């Protein structure tokens, strides 16, 4: 415990860990080793860190098999177009290209998608391309020949067609329909209803209403998608950056028309994922070419190619109305949202399903209705981006609750505390969590800074001219894992004859540190020091299925599987010598000692037979979090565990320029148990940075600004100091009480900043991000001057 900086409070039923950044007085050097049984809760150094600081890490573009051909993709330059190819054979010959691939070359199904039921995206468009950037053909050949091609000269004739660019256009009766069976271009609807929202809103003493829109947000992983494929007999091997090797395997098998067992996915290190590397990118092109040619083929997306063709955060158009009593108690929320899901389904169904479950925020709302639609347009597919629509939703809901608090005349933080969900109150899906609802603790942890910051802002504003300060708060809850769907992870752990432990963990570490966390958990469950562990990951042929790295599920679900596998191996060892559960195990080189009361059993590992996995003992465990399907009103148990959090933003607005500077973010998160506080703080800080980007600068316009010069993401100068406060209100289901954090961290930042903007100058924008032009226009519209607001 002593490695953890500030253990401040355990008496309130939860534990708080606070750490500030660049706090020279409290340098927390990470631990590279910990005695057996003490890894959990400690700031262990990440296990894959060394390769990353020495430059030896292998990312998607870093390995090129000898003799590999280069592949490039021909993409539609219009939002929607029919097309016809010219003489492809002649083109290949003239340009010394090994082959040209089109839809005709797909031996299996020319269709893929992350949710099999909705799979609708072709590898190559067949007669009409439905978004700018959609692939229609590919060329593969020797590097020099392929590099020098001017792809605008590719023999294809385009016939530009009128495109649906907005949700409204797509919903207009008579609009062209993108996909058969999806009337009015509605991919899917989501719905959660509880109580009688209409009556409750009619009777509410105080109501507030709000409309807000958000745009496409680009993941901007610094690593563009890349990889290579090669054929080995009847097997296709694909080495690429991915968040979901097992899903890739199924899709590639379907595309090639071969068995899954004939597809081997080797995920490289991932240079940022955030949801976009859950969907296929380079893989199908590489697989098709390598399969057909029986030669290794590689490809690296250019930044522009990555931006125009990979998934984005869904633009959302939201309306909400809420009611409360004069006592400040929330009574009702009516929420509607349409999401622009682009040309293909990707994760649109997940976004539409997840948002209605979460739109109440982490509060008790007795009367509730949330309706969503995911709507197809002729734009780049929107998919998964940290939070599956919940960050957009929180921008509407948390601003609305601020309005309501103001109308009630209550302090905005106290309003949230008053209405916080508790262990005993039902959620909007009728689930009583019974434990681990740490939202109130998160808000309370912000109280001291809230009071101080508000006073500082008032003091500053009393003498400032065009600069105005504001303070905002926002809360968040987020269910860990898939929404009411099976979601299992399997871990295998083996004891080697030399006394080392092999952990086969298929949870892809996309930078967040899950490989380290999962090992910490397994080590403690087994009772063995983490130094003894050898990690085997990143290859579908050697690891059991750990699902995908998404939905904040790896610590919670894969972590729990690792816990169970560790415990199972421990039991196997005890069984060998018929020792009781309470016995202590110590691992030596070549042997294991079991200490039981006064007895000491020594197991010489070299004497044990080797099992089919190559170990002297092997244990495997699967965990699938308990959930229950939602009924037609969205009532049920969508998640076993939720994470909670709240952010406090302090900002300064330049009313003459319309610019916003974030001065400080304080972030409190209930993580159940901080398996590795440093890694969690890292998730929070990264999430906050993306939240700042989403609030203030990031908006992708398909067809414009398809590069990182025009699409701005925060740089070091944009990110203020971030203080993390970790609350540990444990879950009895998660490993050692842990919940997820990956997506939770990004959700409250943007609404907290937007609430601070309102606090500073009294404006709410209809369109987010709050770029200087929008802020300035609203300032002018409202006639605000620095001096006129006292």
């Amino acid at each position, binding site marked *: 415990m002593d490695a953890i900086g500030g253990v401040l409070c355990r008496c309130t039923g939860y534990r708080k860990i606070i750490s500030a950044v660049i706090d020279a007085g409290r340098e927390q050097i990470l631990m590279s080793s910990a005695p057996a049984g003490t890894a959990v809760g400690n700031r262990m150094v990440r296990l894959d860190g060394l390769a990353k600081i020495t430059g030896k890490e292998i990312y998607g573009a870093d390995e090129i098999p000898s003799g590999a051909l280069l592949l490039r993709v021909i993409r539609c330059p219009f939002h929607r177009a029919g097309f016809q190819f010219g003489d492809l054979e002649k083109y290949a010959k003239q340009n010394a290209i090994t082959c040209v691939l089109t839809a005709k070359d797909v031996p299996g199904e020319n269709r893929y998608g992350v949710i099999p039921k909705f799979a609708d995206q072709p590898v190559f468009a067949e007669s009409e391309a439905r978004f700018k950037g959609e692939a229609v053909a590919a060329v593969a050949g020797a590097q020099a020949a392929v590099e020098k091609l001017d792809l605008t000269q590719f023999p294809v004739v385009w016939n530009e067609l009128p495109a649906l660019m907005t949700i409204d256009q797509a919903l207009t009766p008579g609009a062209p329909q993108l996909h058969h069976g999806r009337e009015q271009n509605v991919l899917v609807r989501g719905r959660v209803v509880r109580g009688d929202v209409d009556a409750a809103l009619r009777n509410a003493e105080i109501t507030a209403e709000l409309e807000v829109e958000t745009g496409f947000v680009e993941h901007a992983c610094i690593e563009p998608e890349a990889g290579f494929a090669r054929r080995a007999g009847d097997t296709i091997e694909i080495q690429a950056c991915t968040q979901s090797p097992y899903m890739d395997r199924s899709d590639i098998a379907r595309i090639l028309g071969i068995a899954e067992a004939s597809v081997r996915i080797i995920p490289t290190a991932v*240079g*940022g994922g955030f949801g976009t590397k859950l969907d296929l990118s380079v893989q199908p092109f590489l697989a098709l070419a390598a399969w057909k040619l029986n030669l290794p083929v590689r490809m690296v997306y250019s930044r522009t190619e990555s931006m125009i063709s990979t998934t984005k955060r869904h633009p959302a158009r939201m309306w909400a109305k809420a009611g409360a009593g004069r006592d400040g108690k929330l009574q009702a929320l009516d929420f509607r949202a349409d999401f622009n899901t682009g040309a293909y389904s990707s994760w649109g169904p997940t976004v539409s399903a997840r948002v209605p479950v979460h739109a109440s925020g982490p509060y008790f709302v007795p009367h509730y209705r949330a309706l969503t639609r995911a709507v197809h347009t002729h734009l780049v597919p929107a998919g998964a981006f940290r939070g599956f629509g919940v960050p957009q939703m929180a921008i509407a809901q948390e601003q609305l609750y601020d309005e309501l608090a103001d109308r009630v005349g209550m302090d905005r933080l106290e309003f949230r505390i008053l209405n916080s969900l508790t262990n005993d109150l039902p959620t909007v899906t009728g689930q009583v969590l019974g434990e681990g609802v740490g939202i109130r603790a998160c808000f309370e942890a912000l109280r001291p800074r809230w009071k101080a910051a508000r006073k500082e802002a008032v003091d500053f504003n009393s003498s400032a001219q065009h600069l105005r300060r504001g303070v905002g708060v926002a809360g968040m809850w987020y269910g860990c894992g898939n929404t009411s769907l099976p979601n299992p992870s399997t871990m295998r752990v083996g004891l080697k004859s030399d006394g080392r432990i092999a952990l086969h963990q298929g949870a892809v570490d996309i930078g967040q540190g899950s490989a380290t966390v999962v090992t910490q958990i397994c080590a403690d469950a087994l009772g063995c020091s983490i130094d003894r562990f050898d990690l085997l990951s990143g290859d579908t042929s050697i690891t059991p299925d750990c699902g995908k790295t998404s939905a904040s599920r790896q610590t919670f679900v894969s972590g729990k599987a690792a816990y169970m596998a560790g415990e199972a191996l421990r039991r196997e060892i005890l069984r060998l010598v018929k020792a009781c559960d309470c016995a202590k195990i110590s691992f030596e080189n070549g042997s294991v000692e079991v200490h039981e009361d006064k007895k000491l059993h020594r197991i010489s590992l070299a004497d044990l037979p080797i099992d089919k996995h190559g170990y002297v003992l092997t244990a495997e465990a699967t965990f699938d979090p308990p959930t229950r399907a939602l009924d037609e009103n969205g009532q049920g148990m969508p998640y076993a565990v939720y994470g909670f959090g709240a952010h406090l933003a302090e900002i300064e607005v330049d009313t003459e320029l319309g610019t916003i500077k974030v001065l400080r973010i304080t972030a409190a998160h209930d993580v159940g148990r901080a398996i590795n506080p440093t890694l969690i703080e890292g998730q929070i800080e990264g999430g*906050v940075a993306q939240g700042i980007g989403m609030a203030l600068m990031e908006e992708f316009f398909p067809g414009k600004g398809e590069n990182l010069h025009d699409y701005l*993401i925060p740089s070091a100068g944009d990110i203020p100091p971030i203080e993390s406060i970790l609350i540990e209100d444990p879950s009895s289901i998660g490993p050692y009480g842990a919940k997820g954090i990956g997506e939770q961290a990004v959700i409250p930042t943007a609404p907290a900043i937007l609430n601070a903007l309102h606090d500073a100058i009294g404006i709410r924008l209809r369109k987010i991000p709050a770029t200087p032009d929008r802020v300035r226009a609203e300032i002018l519209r409202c006639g605000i001057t620095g001096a006129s607001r006292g």
Partner: protein
Amino acid sequence: MPEAVAKIGIKIIVNGKTCSLSVEPRQLLVELLRETLDLTGTHVGCDTSYCGACTVLLNGKAVKSCTVFAFQADGGEITTVEGVEKSGNLHPIQKAFGEAYGLQCGYCTPGLMLSTFQLLSKTKDPTEKDLRKAIAGNTCRCTGYQNVLKAMTFAAKAMKESNGHQV
């Protein structure tokens, strides 16, 4: 077949090793490093000289190697992330990035470390402003920069204590 382009002979020192190479005039330094010399620790993240993932030291100065033609480096000395380690020991900057958890996915990390390298070779006691300025051209999408700044602080301290060790 592609027409033959006249190649240019260059001599550069990469991570202490002298290399004589012949390069196409259009070849970028980053391509030379990654493809010809197989030093894949230098990364590529954009096409517009923006992200800084490709940062290396050219004659002690941090440059974006996607913005320099290979032939422009002729006669110069280049340090990439692979050359920061000395005799098998991690450089204090590398140690600091590891110990302060100054990385997540790690894609930006080599570039950030080399920008830090340039800063600390000149400024022994950097202020927070110096730190932020030094990495203004290095974009990181994962960390929110907090631990990167912390790592830079750790590195500055360690290097000062060891009296400018190795820089």
